[in-house]
């Protein structure tokens, strides 16, 4: 049987949510919460704060649906709102997050998973050693799964400079990983 389930794009979902469709809002939350979480992590929120920020941002969207002027660009709205919210929370609570606390060490697991755990712990350690700019960029790219265009808008960087910067950051990471191998 052919799969007739329709995949609604973001703009359609925002317009439907505005009209009172809870299912559309739920779909937006499912689709973009990792993106929101990754953006909060990228600006320095620890895991607990990033998950609080996820809730705050969706609360804000629910309250402001009628004010969203470009429903098709909801990810841009989410990125800006998330980054501003995370920065406000970081400043307000003065939960001074030492760089070492931003990225927790990977937890130990059963023996069968040990090599993966060791590798992830190594990666966590090397991520902490990156420059702030590199850490933010790689978290945006690999945790928030943002496109180069989205990163360019969020960081107000020229599109053309992001690819080379990412290359340099990956090289830094690779160098750290190879030293610890």
């Amino acid at each position, binding site marked *: 049987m052919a799969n007739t389930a329709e995949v609604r794009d973001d703009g359609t979902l925002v317009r439907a*949510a505005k009209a009172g469709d*809870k299912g559309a*809002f*739920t779909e937006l*939350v*499912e689709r973009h*919460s*990792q993106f*929101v*979480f*990754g953006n909060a*992590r990228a600006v320095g929120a620890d895991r607990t*704060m*990033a*998950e*609080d920020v*996820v*809730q*705050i*941002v*969706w*609360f*804000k*969207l*629910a*309250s*402001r*649906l*009628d004010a969203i002027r470009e429903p098709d660009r909801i990810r841009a709205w989410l990125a800006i709102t998330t980054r501003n919210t995370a920065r*406000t*929370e970081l*400043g*307000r*609570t*003065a939960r001074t997050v030492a760089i070492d606390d931003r990225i*927790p060490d*990977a937890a130990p697991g059963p023996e069968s998973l040990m090599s*993966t755990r060791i*590798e*992830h712990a190594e*990666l*966590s350690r090397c991520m902490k050693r990156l420059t702030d700019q590199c850490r933010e960029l*790689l*978290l945006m790219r*690999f*945790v928030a799964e943002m496109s180069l265009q989205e990163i360019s808008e969020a960081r107000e960087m020229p599109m053309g400079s992001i690819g080379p910067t990412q*290359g340099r950051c*990956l*090289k830094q*990471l*690779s160098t750290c*990983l190879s030293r610890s191998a």
Partner: protein
Amino acid sequence: MSDYEDSEDLHDVIRRLSAWAAVEEQVSSEAVETAKMAFDLRQVEDELAELVHTDGLAVRGDDAEPTSELRFGVQGLDILVSLRRGQLAVVVAPPPDGLDVESAGGRQPVELDDVGGATIAALGVVRLRVRRNGNPDVVTDPFVVPGTD
């Protein structure tokens, strides 16, 4: 393109980074499920009170309990919130007809004193709903009531 940008090493570090992010840096399902509930608290006629001032942690009073203050405003209404661990104190000026604390878990009415103040036990992400007879409700931006460390 530099040699590195097309190297095996680059592809390997991307693979390792992607695998790390997929395991260690995922938003929890609890956070996602809680976020979905935000829609239930939506009321289209609500008026939004924006955060107009915030103070970071400060030591106040004899008990040296860290406190954080937030001020929300909308025309003709001031909402001052003082946060402590697991608790918020609020003063609304002028005193409103009613006040609710809203969270993903629902809505909790608050009893206000004569000057529009109250102290409320709360935790996590909440917002306040100020009720005014004959006018739309005013809701604050959501904020976090801290728990114990």
